[in-house]
């Protein structure tokens, strides 16, 4: 005789639960964590390096870098003088809450105001695996094309800030900025949007000013 047993549990709950626990650990140390995501080659690391330069005289920073191979990005971040930990995911295409929870003890959170996490270059999978950060940022780039919000909705929906990098290349690409922005608005109305060039520095003042506002608001709460 069969009976129906109600379950009503979300399938990704193990990751979600650990993400919440990561968030609690970060909050206990008053560390503002940022998850940077993007396609490979969009300029995540370049944006992060320039962001670090702008922030490091005002906040104590640390970095966690995720890649399937090499320590190239963690080395670049460490070269700025801030502590950096590399996670090699062993082939997994995204960081998840488990990996981050294993990396957090390697960071001196008591003496870290802002933790920058660079996810694996991937426009799909990271959107399904929250890490427990305070701010999710997507770095899009002009050469990728203006149709990416339409083709990759979960990623564009899941972030609180969007940088459009490599705007110095707009004269060389057929990138319809209006079409791009419409796609973004449809998925994520009111998303903070920053056209930038990590190479020339264009647009960084606005991005850094906004980011500082977010960080300061967090650090000043009880």
């Amino acid at each position, binding site marked *: 005789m069969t009976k129906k047993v109600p379950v009503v549990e979300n399938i990704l709950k193990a990751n979600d639960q650990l993400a919440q626990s990561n968030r609690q650990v970060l909050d206990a140390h008053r560390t503002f964590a940022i998850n940077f995501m993007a396609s490979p080659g969009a300029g995540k690391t370049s944006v992060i390096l320039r962001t670090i330069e702008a922030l490091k005289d005002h906040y104590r920073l640390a970095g966690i870098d995720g890649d399937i191979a090499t320590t190239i990005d963690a080395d670049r971040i460490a070269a700025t003088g801030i502590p950096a930990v590399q996670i090699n995911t062993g082939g997994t295409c995204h960081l998840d809450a488990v990996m981050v929870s294993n990396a957090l003890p390697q960071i001196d959170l008591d003496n870290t105001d802002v933790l920058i996490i660079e996810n694996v270059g991937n426009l799909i999978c990271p959107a399904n695996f929250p890490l427990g950060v305070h701010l999710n940022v997507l770095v899009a780039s002009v050469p990728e094309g203006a149709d990416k919000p339409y083709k990759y909705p*979960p990623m564009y929906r899941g972030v609180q800030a969007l940088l459009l990098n490599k705007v110095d290349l707009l004269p060389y690409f057929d990138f319809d900025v209006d079409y791009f922005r419409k796609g973004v608005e449809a998925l994520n109305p009111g998303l903070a949007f920053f056209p930038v060039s990590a190479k020339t520095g264009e647009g960084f003042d606005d991005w850094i000013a906004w980011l500082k506002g977010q960080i300061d608001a967090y650090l000043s709460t009880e």
Partner: protein
Amino acid sequence: MHELPFVESILKITLEHAERAGAKRVTALYLVIGQMSSIVDDSVQFYWDILSKGTIAEGAKLHFQRIPAVYRCWDCGHTYELDGEHLACPRCGSVRVQLVQGDEFRLDSIEVE
């Protein structure tokens, strides 16, 4: 794309609830999957067949209930189901819309003996 770890999670949740209910066998699973969550039914079935072998859930039938994507327009308040790929509000044309349903991926219930 991550149907393998997802199915591991489904199996774990299933066996936990089956044990709590004192079940000898699990005969069916009822999964609810939103239109906008990128889960492929065939892949779930494929990995389920492999991972459930040797457990009391082996051979359980998977039922997939697909939930349509529903948007609400920020500007005029209209709620509507997604029609093809056209996201804009059919009443006022605004693109300032919010997904209110369609992201789900959960195990709603299981049938046990």
